[in-house]
């Protein structure tokens, strides 16, 4: 667990931070045990107090859909550099190539999950529309189309340019041949925290690109992770990631009257977990801890 960082001149604040850290650590261990988590990774940064806290934040997890944050970053990299415009048309075609054996594969499309992207099959959607659906409804179809459009090397270049460590994007989603061969996208809590801090602070390819990314992330439809542990008035720009044994969420939390904080919670279960509230529980604890500090 990393040491909290507090202004050196504020001794009472240091004391408060130390108490908060101890409290968080205890509650996180309790959550881990209560939910029988195999692994848990947390990274947190609060712009209001400058408190930074983490637990197992460099542990590598299967990325699931949190890799879509890296794709979003790469799209806006290309946009900022003038290498694509957000209204460029992309053919909505369900045919992709596995990175493992170079064989074509198709996604198992579901009208309910893919919504508008499914409806556009055979036609075109703009880069911006695809980016929106990739994040807000976690469309795998939109994600793979964008991965094809910008290219995996560009995604990795974007991460390197932003000096984001711990994120590895090799491929799009549902590439089962690659999965069987162990070729997976990976994340760490610290890596995602860095990425979201850049977006929150307007440093991800400039303020305009960052603002547009924040707007998309704020429209997230799935509210089961970080937002579920917060008061209703909280606004969260976030992206979750769920597969059978991992449930993640990574987001920027906006609360009235204070600067935002960034929270990443990565959870892994020994077996298929079904619905779990582990991420929401961590989110609630963090919020209550901060509320206590704000109140003090």
């Amino acid at each position: 667990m990393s040491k909290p960082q507090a202004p050196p001149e504020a001794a009472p604040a240091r004391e408060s931070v130390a108490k908060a850290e101890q409290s968080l650590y205890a509650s996180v261990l309790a959550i881990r045990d209560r939910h029988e988590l195999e692994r848990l990774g947390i990274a947190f940064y609060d712009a209001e107090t400058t408190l930074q806290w983490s637990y197992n934040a460099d542990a590598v997890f299967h990325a699931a859909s949190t890799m879509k944050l890296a794709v979003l970053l790469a799209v806006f990299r290309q946009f900022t550099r003038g290498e694509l415009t957000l209204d460029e048309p992309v053919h909505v075609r369900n045919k992709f190539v596995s990175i493992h054996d170079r064989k074509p594969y198709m996604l198992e499309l579901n009208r309910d999950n893919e919504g508008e992207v499914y409806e556009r099959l055979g036609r075109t959607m703009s880069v911006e529309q695809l980016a929106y659906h990739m994040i807000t409804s976690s469309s795998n179809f939109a994600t793979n189309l964008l991965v094809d459009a910008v290219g995996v090397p560009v995604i990795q270049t974007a991460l390197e340019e932003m000096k984001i460590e711990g994120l590895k994007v090799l491929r799009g989603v549902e590439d089962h041949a690659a999965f069987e061969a162990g070729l997976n996208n990976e994340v760490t809590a610290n890596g995602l925290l860095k990425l979201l801090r850049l977006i929150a602070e307007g440093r991800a390819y400039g303020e305009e690109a960052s603002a547009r990314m924040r707007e998309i992330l704020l429209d997230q439809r799935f509210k089961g992770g970080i937002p579920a542990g917060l008061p209703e008035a909280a606004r969260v720009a976030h992206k979750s990631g769920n597969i059978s044994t991992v449930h993640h969420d990574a987001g920027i939390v906006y609360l009235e009257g204070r600067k935002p904080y960034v929270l990443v919670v990565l959870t892994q279960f020994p077996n298929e977990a079904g619905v779990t509230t582990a991420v929401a529980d961590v989110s609630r604890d963090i919020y209550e801890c901060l509320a206590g500090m704000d109140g003090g």
Partner: protein
Amino acid sequence: MAETESESGLKIVDGFDLEPELRALLRPGELVEGIGGQCHHLPRYFYEVPTREAAREIRLTAHFGLNEFLLVDMKEASRVRAFPRYVPCAIRMTAFYLERLREATGAPVHLAVNGGYRSPAHKLSVAATPHMWGTAADVYKIGSVVLRDRASIETYNRVVEDLTDDLYVMPYGHGIGTADDHIHVDLGYVVVVPREISEDRLDRPQDRPRFAFEERRRGDRRGWPREPLPDILPAAAHTGSSESKK
């Protein structure tokens, strides 16, 4: 610059007269090698499509608009996507055969994005594909049937084969030279050269050529009176092409 007014304001342009950037992308008259090692000259004469609106309005046949053959995504070079756009003159022939396919199936025939004309700069133009000649079409949907399985693709491939020997159809499959989410039809490496153009010309400006058949079609569509045919032809020939189709 060698160009001629065509119907609906379309100009026919010699690719050699295009600006350097476009010429580099369209590579008029250049030799291109196919997957099998055969080499073919790329088309040199193009229709100039001035605007998006013009592309939407211009009908190549009763049911096929020019815009359907120009629908591409970001895999196409951005300059090629910008208007004015250029499409090989053979595109009319492709539309003619697709119209026949539509008649045979009795249902609308939908071209896929990137399924009509692709310039040599298009990312899917890895070898001499007839798409670069404007003589190929990828159809992803016929009527309400989305072509993405063996049964539907092979069924419609057979319809095409029964229709004409002029069209090549790509067999169902997942590899190169096969198709699994559309039917591919093409006329091969057909190049249309305007009647008045002399192909030995390299840099000499042309006169203003025009397709004679365009005049006739334009007259048909606009209901203009046609000159009577000579009496030496059978009476049926005097009824006009539209009636004879019925």
